[in-house]
Structure formats: structure tokens, C-alpha cells
């Protein structure tokens, strides 16, 4: 900590973290702009390679790519803020496409996050408690396997198991494109995401709990003859909650990107599928909007993780070091 004597106030630390988050977001917007408009050629992306020079010039003027990069960047940010960015593919405002899809993705990622957190935290605490029993070793091996598998491979195995091969319980792909979701169609993509995220939370929750259980004050509590259950629930758990909540925020941030492949696998009508389709069609305004949206969410969740980490650390909370 920078100020050992009086202690830097926690509000100031949080403000600093948020400030740097805003700076990063600005830098990210420059990269998104630079990567797609600065380095690439949006006119060619839109028209293809066979367009006549006149047509290229006309479209370049329309898009403003004949102006300087700084002017373009400012106009681009204005367009985003005033909702004027239009999709190359449909000519409609990007927000029109993304609104309902964003809601769908939120439902998918939110429900997957909730289930993964509940399973992961409970499993992590239980594994730390029963550490090194044979059943726990098996569970930790299974979680290692699940973390290792690419999400689309897990998803394919689930489809083979539950929709096509062994059992015929659930639809393999999402049919239709409505905004109101069929819960039955939600199950497979959600389960795939849970199987990727829950073991990760489990591993970190387990590690945190083991660290706390090996600390001096927990040993002291044990020496006083307090029952093991009480040691875990009353003495150890409160001190592990900070890092665990931090992990949860990080996993939610991971879900913001993780939905892309899983949504594509199940043709789930969310922003992930929209992103994959937009990249295939080289629909740059849509790609930019989704990249910024996901990066923005990701930054916010990571700030949240850091703030929770600060709040949960008693040394910071009480301003002493």
C-alpha cells in the first residue's frame, strides 16, 4: 500500500481503480477502431475486390474513410453514442439487431453463472474439507478434465448424449429466432457453460479454503477443541469469501467471452452467434459494437472483482498496513 502511516482511504483506492478502468475502456475503443478501420479497409470489406474505382470512392466518402484517422475516430465514437452505427449487412442500426440478442445472452450467461457459482463454491468447500479422500481426488480429476476440454467439444458430447445418440431428451439446436426463450432450448447451452465454469470456480474455491484452513488462527481454533464443522463454517469460511467472490466476478467476465463459441454451437440467438456471423460477413460496425459491448462488460466485471477484493481485505478496509 502506498501510504503506510495514515492508510489510503478505501474510497480513494476504489476511485483509482474505476478511473484506470475508464482509461482502459478508451484505449480499448481506440484499438477496436484502429484494428477494424485503421489497419483494414472497410470499403473493400463491404464491397469486395471487384468494385469499380468510382464506386469505391463514393462509398469511402459516404463512410468518411477519406478523412483523417482522428476525424474518423471522433465521428465513429459520436455515431456509437448517438446510435447511428449501421450494419453493413442489413443497413439497419446495429442496436436494433443487438437489443433482443443481448437480452437472450444475458439470460443464458446469467443462469449459467448462477448455477456454476452455486455448484462450484459448494463443491470447492466440500473438496477442501474432504481433501485427499479418494472420492475427492476423483472429483478433482474430473474438474481438471472439464476445465481442459474446449467448450464446443463438451457441447458436442452433451448433444450426442442427450439429444441424438443415447437419449432423445433435448433439442440439439435452437429453432426459431424469437426473443422469448424456450427454457428447454436453454438447458444444453447453459449446461455446457456450467461444465466449463463450475470446475474452475471449484478449483479456486478449494485452493482458497485450503489456504485458510492451514492458517494459524484456524489451527488455534482447532487447538481450542472446536468441532471441525464449526471451524470450517464459522472461522474459516468468512475469511475465504472475499477471494471466492472475486473468482466469481472473474468467471462471469469469462462468460462474457465464453458465450461466443457455445452460442454458435447451438445456434442460440444471442450476441455470440451475432458476432460469429458478423465476422463471417465482415460486417465491421456490428463486430465493433459487439467487441466494445463485451469488452465493456468484461472491464466492469473485472473492476467489480478488484473492488470486492479490496473490500474483503481487512488490511485495506481498516486502512492499516
Amino acid at each position, binding site marked *: 500500500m502506498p501510504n503506510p502511516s495514515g492508510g489510503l482511504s478505501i474510497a480513494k483506492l476504489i476511485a483509482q481503480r474505476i478511473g*484506470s478502468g475508464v482509461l*482502459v*475502456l478508451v*484505449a*480499448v475503443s481506440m*484499438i*477496436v477502431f484502429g*484494428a*477494424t478501420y485503421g*489497419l*483494414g479497409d472497410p470499403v473493400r*470489406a463491404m464491397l469486395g475486390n471487384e468494385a469499380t474505382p468510382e464506386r469505391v470512392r463514393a462509398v469511402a466518402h459516404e463512410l468518411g474513410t477519406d478523412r483523417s484517422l482522428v476525424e474518423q475516430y471522433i465521428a465513429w465514437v459520436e455515431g456509437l453514442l448517438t446510435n447511428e452505427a449501421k450494419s453493413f449487412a442489413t443497413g439497419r442500426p446495429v442496436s436494433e439487431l443487438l437489443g433482443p440478442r443481448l437480452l437472450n445472452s444475458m439470460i443464458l450467461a446469467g443462469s449459467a453463472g448462477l448455477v456454476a457459482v452455486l455448484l462450484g463454491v459448494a463443491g470447492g468447500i466440500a473438496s477442501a474439507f474432504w481433501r485427499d479422500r479418494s472420492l475427492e481426488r476423483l472429483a*478433482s480429476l474430473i474438474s*481438471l*478434465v472439464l*476445465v*481442459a*476440454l*474446449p*467448450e*464446443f*467439444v463438451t457441447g*458436442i*458430447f452433451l*448433444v*450426442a448424449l442427450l439429444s*441424438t*445418440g443415447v437419449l432423445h431428451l433435448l433439442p*440439439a439446436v435452437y429453432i426459431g429466432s424469437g426473443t422469448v426463450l424456450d427454457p428447454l432450448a436453454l438447458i444444453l447451452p447453459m449446461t455446457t457453460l456450467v461444465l466449463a465454469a463450475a470446475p*474452475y470456480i471449484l*478449483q*479456486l474455491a*478449494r*485452493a482458497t479454503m*485450503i*489456504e485458510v484452513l492451514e492458517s494459524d488462527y484456524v489451527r488455534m481454533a482447532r487447538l481450542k477443541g472446536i468441532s471441525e464443522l464449526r471451524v470450517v463454517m464459522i472461522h474459516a469460511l468468512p475469511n475465504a469469501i472475499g477471494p471466492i467472490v472475486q473468482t466469481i466476478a472473474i468467471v462471469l*467476465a*469469462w462468460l*462474457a*467471452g*465464453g458465450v*461466443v*463459441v457455445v452460442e*454458435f*454451437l447451438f445456434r442460440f440467438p444471442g450476441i455470440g452467434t451475432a*458476432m*460469429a456471423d*458478423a*465476422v*463471417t460477413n*465482415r460486417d*465491421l460496425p456490428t*463486430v465493433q459494437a*459487439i*467487441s466494445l459491448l*463485451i*469488452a465493456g462488460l*468484461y*472491464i466492469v466485471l*473485472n473492476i467489480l472483482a478488484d473492488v470486492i477484493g479490496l473490500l474483503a481485505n481487512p488490511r485495506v478496509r481498516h486502512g492499516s498496513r
Partner: protein
Amino acid sequence: MSALAEQSAVAGGTSNPSQVRAALRLGRTRLGLALCLAVIGVALVGPWLVPHSPTDFVAGPFQVRAPGAPLGSDNLGRDVLSRFLAGGKALLILSVLATIAGVGLGTAVGAIAGYFRSTIDNWLMRLTDVVLAFPHIVLALLLVATFGPQPWLIVLAVAIGHAPRTARIVRAATLGVVEHDYIRAAEAVGVPWPSIVFHEIVPAISSPLLAETALRFAYSLTFVSSLSFLGLGLQPPTPDWGVMINENRLALTVAPFGTLLPAAALAILTVGTSLVSDGFSRVVAGVDRGIKS
């Protein structure tokens, strides 16, 4: 993460070969290596064993079994077995290149930041913050949207995502090494800084670096195959496991091999690599924590 950094500072003192041997004594490392080598063997030798050209049409689409195609045909009537045997090589090459490039760049950035600290450190770490503000897949898709799907771009996209993550690990490990007397001695006799960074510091942190490289390779495999699966990595008609899964998954019921065979190969390969990486991490961290970065 900080626990890992502290541990690796301690581990920095021990010699690297003994740690490799310690890792190889773990059952999980051996199992992981066996699984990896089996799939890597198929991927490297497979292209010479194909009964047909992987792009030849040998039967109608989605046949379960056809004359000359024991595992059936794919969505265009090509031999599933041939495409499977030929489908791992490109993935392996791209993943190895991406891992080398990403870990190399990250090591340079992390070691320089950790050695100089102060202003350079500050700027380099802010730079990693910006790259880390994108989920890796979004960064890659952004690049593919701009330049189109090309092999060098896949390597670059994966490497750029790896570099800041490796840089953080290397920087933390470097901070534990720079205080040692032999670094001070090298400075005192006027050894130029690139030589200190790459000949004194990097060898001293080779153990955590090895664990990090194994982890990054596991992740490269997932990532490259995911891009191909999305149709934004290796392009048809290239035989590739990720591409195959995407092409054939609609016929999972009628002709399952075209999807399940590459999926199984990817599963064994990624699980094997993760077991090896986990074995190395355990030896380097010295404790059973199960922490992954």
C-alpha cells in the same frame, strides 16, 4: 497468483532438470504425456496413412459405411478416416507457433518490466491491462474480421492473447530474482542489460516458465480449434478437426464418426496437455493448490 509468484521465487534457485524429473515422477504427468503423444503421433504420422486424399469424393454425403470408407463419408462425401488422419497436423503446427511466439513475447516484456521496474514497468503493465481488457476470443475475432481468416493471423491472434498473461507471471518471478547478488555482481562488472535479462534472469526463472509454457500450449490447442470450429480459423477444404466438427455435426445421428472422432481426438489431446501442465505447476508451486492462472 501472488502465492505462485512467491513460490516460484523460491523455485528459481533450484535447477531446472531436477524439476522436470520431479514432474515426470508424478503419475498425472506420465498419463498426460502418454495421451498427448498418442494423439500427436496420429496427427503427425496420419497424413501418410490416408487411404484416400482428404479432399477426394468417395461416396454420397453422410454415409455410415461405404466401400473403401470404413468410417463413412462426410457432408460432401469425402472419406472421414482420411480427413481425420490428416486433420491434426495444421492444428499442432499453429498451436506450437502461437505458444512460442506468445510465451517468447510475454517473457521479454515481463522480464524487462521486472528488471527495470519504475517507468518502463508501469507502461508495459498498463499495456498488458489494455490487451487483457478483451476476452481472448473477442480479440481474435476482431483481427479475423479485419484481415480475413489466415493462418499467420491465427498464430498472431493467439500469441497476442498469451503474451500479457505470460508477462505477468514472468514479471512476478523476475521480481524475486533481481535482488540476488549475482545480478548485482553482473551489473557491477558492466554486463549490458539485454545480457543480464536474457542470460541471467530468464534461465533463473525457467521452471515457472516451463509450467507456463505447458499451460499456454494447452490453451493454444483449445483456441485454434475453437476458431476453426467457428469457421474463422483454418478454412475448408483443409482437413482439420475443428472444421470437421463444424461441417458434420448436423448429421451426428446418421453419421456420427465425422463429428465424434475429431471431438475425441481434441478431448484426449487437451486433457493430456492439461495433465502435463498441472504436473509441472504442482512441482513448481511445491504444493497441492490446483491454482491455474
